[in-house]
């Protein structure tokens, strides 16, 4: 996870305070599914609340905004078939 002491300035896109979200992969789930550790494509890890996505499982990608997963992405295979 980026260092919270860093500023958003210089970033081309503020992922926290806008209507934007990012896809992260669930790496571990704890506390009965309430919270998880997720990793982005660059290997940054962050604590993510999973209370809104009871179908999240390790290895699946979730859409995360402001520290909360909003949905579980369809798998690449199922999405490609659409």
């Amino acid at each position, binding site marked *: *996870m*980026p260092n*919270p*002491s*860093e*500023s*958003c*300035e210089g*970033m*081309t*896109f*503020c*992922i*926290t*305070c*806008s*209507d*934007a*979200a990012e896809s992260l992969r669930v790496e571990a789930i704890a506390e009965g599914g*309430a919270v998880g550790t997720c990793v982005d*494509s660059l290997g940054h890890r*962050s*604590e993510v*609340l999973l*209370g*809104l*996505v*009871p179908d999240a499982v390790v290895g699946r990608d979730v*859409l995360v*905004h*402001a*520290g*909360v997963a*909003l*949905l579980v*992405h*369809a798998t*690449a295979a199922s*999405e490609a078939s*659409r």
Partner: protein
Amino acid sequence: MKFVDEFRNADLGAALAEQIAATVDPRRHYKMMEVCGGHTHTIYRYGVADLLPPNVELVHGPGCPVCVIPMGRVDDAIAMARNPRVILTCFGDMMRVPGGTGSLTEAKAAGADVRMVYSPLDALRIAQANQDRDVVFFAVGFETTAPSTALTILRARAERTKNFFVFSNHVTIVPPIRALLESPDLRLDAFIGPGHVCTVVGARPFQFIAADYGKPVVISGFEPLDVLQSAFMILRQLADGRCEVENQYKRVVPFEGNPAAFRVLADVFELRPHFEWRGLGFISQSALKLSPAFADFDAELRFGVPGVRVADPKACQCGEVLKGVIKPWECKVFGTACTPEHPIGTCMVSSEGACAAYYNFGRLARRTREPRVAELASS
């Protein structure tokens, strides 16, 4: 990268632009509003407008949550931050938004303990690590962000954290859209709907735009071809005489939204009777405050706030920009007195703000394009 590269493919974009050109009626002017700051950012960053015919106009709406916060609420946050017992936490962009008494960055420079966080959960962790202090999270954002704040409050209660408070400035997207539709200032043909808000609320809340006002809505993703395809879908609706809510962002947005998020929001928040929006004035039932059951976490009750309404600087035209009445470059102080380094208005602060997005990405393309247009006109 899958689901990114194909939505930034130049050849696909050019092909889509040809289809759009073949769809529009050259005798008609089309005006569509994107209500989400993320779309505004994409439009300027990738030059989406350059792929549209000149009679298709994109208008930027009040979809940047930082931009719509009035100056008085910033002053309220600064007043809390000046309390030596308080650690005030907020997202990065909020730190630079000017209030009537300066910005949170300036308050921090003057000694206030103001910290940037990436999520409400970060703020809760700061509270748990500093139990001799009170930690306030300055919460902004639409329905995308509000569930994060709500879940964090529920977690604070479950973990018996007594020194965590939320200064809620969460807003909802439908009331300002309705206000814009009722505004005599603006004539719009359609809306590009906010993709990630809809992951929470779904498509249903936007059906009134088609049913009551006869205007198409297409919920859009955030890659450049997402926005371009959404514009095409809108133009197809208008060409066919249809008026519907369509979902371009099906790979992410379920039509019904996220029911669990609805439940959490209903548990923790209630609608404010009215709330002031920068540029739009007071709008009924357009913002969220903590429900009485969570009053122990309500920073406004814990600390009290000045609650003084502050008029925007006279030179600033953020209000007109947020309503889509003028473009960023038509503001009198754009790029001169007001820049991302020294913003006067909120639209120049956030990277999602129309003025900052245009300043960072659009103005150079416009400068390049304008001489060509002048050259063609004189030949």
